[in-house]
């Protein structure tokens, strides 16, 4: 066995290092049993590699070759095909195996005599009714909640509200559950504006903000330059970044030059922003109540 493996390794090395394409293509060279002078001289080894034993071992590998199930490496497959080319017994065996598989593969799926689903569901209802109690779908993720809610609405609810309204409700619920509550949002907003106030009320803060905006403008300029080679996208990106850059420049100058007057402006901004947020939230809650009928 060891000598046999050594022989195949030698044949591969021969092809690899001598770069002899004629021999590589000539599979017949692989079909020849290993010459005895490459093997150990004891009788057991010679008998193990006799042509009859070789055929037995080839035939052991033929099912895998027929199935092409990936267990035969390409070089071994080449060797097997080479043997089949010179050994009529093994070739006949291989051909019959292939033909058997081909005949078996002609078996076609039978058509169903009837649709069993109705009978099966009826039997389930009779024999196992109530095995799985109707319950809320598992809350694995907002997406699965939405999908399950849709299918449930499509199947079961027809007279209460339209399916689209229920879908809307499901989406709203999942979004509300997955984000912050109202008071958390107020705290986050307050923290944000407080930080901004600290920055704007000090000369150091204003210089930092201005420097940050300058850096941001620099990045935007680099991105616009990188994409300007692209025909349409480069133009669109250039225009968009030009507008953003100008706005940032204006802000930067404002933060750098304005002192206490920026504080007054910021207070006005806070009041306006808070009013807008409260108004939008109120409208959303009204719409939600209207769509669910007050439930």
């Amino acid at each position, binding site marked *: 066995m060891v000598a046999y493996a050594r022989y195949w390794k030698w044949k591969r090395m021969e092809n690899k290092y001598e770069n002899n394409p004629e021999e590589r293509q000539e599979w017949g060279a692989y079909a020849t049993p290993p010459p005895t002078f490459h093997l150990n001289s004891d009788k057991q080894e010679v008998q193990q590699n006799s042509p009859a034993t070789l055929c037995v071992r080839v035939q052991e590998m033929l099912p895998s070759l027929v199935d092409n199930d990936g267990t035969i490496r390409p070089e071994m497959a080449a060797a097997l095909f080479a043997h089949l080319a010179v050994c009529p017994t093994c070739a006949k065996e291989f051909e019959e195996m292939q033909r058997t598989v081909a005949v*078996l593969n002609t*078996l076609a799926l039978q058509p169903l005599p009837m649709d069993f689903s109705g009978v099966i569901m009826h039997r389930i209802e009779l024999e196992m009714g109530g095995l*799985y109690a109707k319950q809320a*779908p598992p809350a694995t993720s907002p997406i699965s909640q939405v*999908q399950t809610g849709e*299918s*449930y609405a499509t199947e079961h609810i027809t007279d209460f509200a339209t399916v689209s309204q229920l879908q809307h409700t499901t989406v709203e619920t999942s979004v509300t559950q997955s984000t912050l509550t109202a008071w958390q949002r107020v705290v986050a907003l307050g923290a944000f504006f407080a930080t901004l106030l600290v920055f704007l009320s000090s000369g150091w803060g204003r210089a930092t903000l201005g420097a940050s905006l300058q850096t941001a403008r620099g990045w935007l300029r680099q991105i616009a330059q990188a994409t300007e080679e692209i025909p349409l996208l480069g133009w669109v990106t250039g225009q968009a970044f030009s507008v953003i850059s100008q706005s940032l420049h204006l802000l930067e100058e404002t933060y750098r030059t304005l002192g206490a007057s920026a504080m007054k402006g910021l207070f006005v901004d806070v009041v306006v922003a808070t009013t807008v947020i409260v108004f939008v939230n109120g409208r959303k809650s009204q719409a939600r109540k209207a769509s669910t009928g007050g439930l």
Partner: protein
Amino acid sequence: MRTVSLLEQTDAMLVRQTLCGQANAYNTLVQRYQRQVYNLAYRMLGNAEDAGDLVQDTFLRAYGALASFRQDASFLTWLYKIASNLCIDLLRSRKTRYALSLDAETDEGREPAADSRSSAPEEIAVRGAVQDVVHHAIQNLPERYRVVVIMRHLNDMSVEEIAQALDLPTGTVKTHLFRAREMLRGRLRPVLEMEADGK
């Protein structure tokens, strides 16, 4: 927002919905896989009536055990496992003359005499359909070989999937497949010769 119809939903989603009490989801699973299960049963049992009963029993048993479905294999593979077990139980319990003669002869690796007669070229010409001959040859295989051949060649399952469905090592599945093909090759020799002559 994209609406996902029942037909597009994956097996895992339908199983989860069934466990949540939505019977319609299980109905979709039945409609999706009843043909594959029916064909496995038909080729295993040999007649349409028993195959129909077995399809119902398979889906009923699957419904009852759905909570234990762990989803480490596909739902179809799990169904095949249930169906093949039911088929083998049914074949063993009925002890029909057909199954008895097969168990007696093929388990010892001998060729059934009746089968060699039925595979004569004249008989093939009378029946007129190679598929019938192949079907009968498969029917005459021992159960453990038959199920492997059907899963491999009719249901297009890989050796690994068959091993998973039958709780067998991959090597055992390969061995069963090889032995089954060897038996079939002997029994289908007239058909194979006809095919060879045709070419």
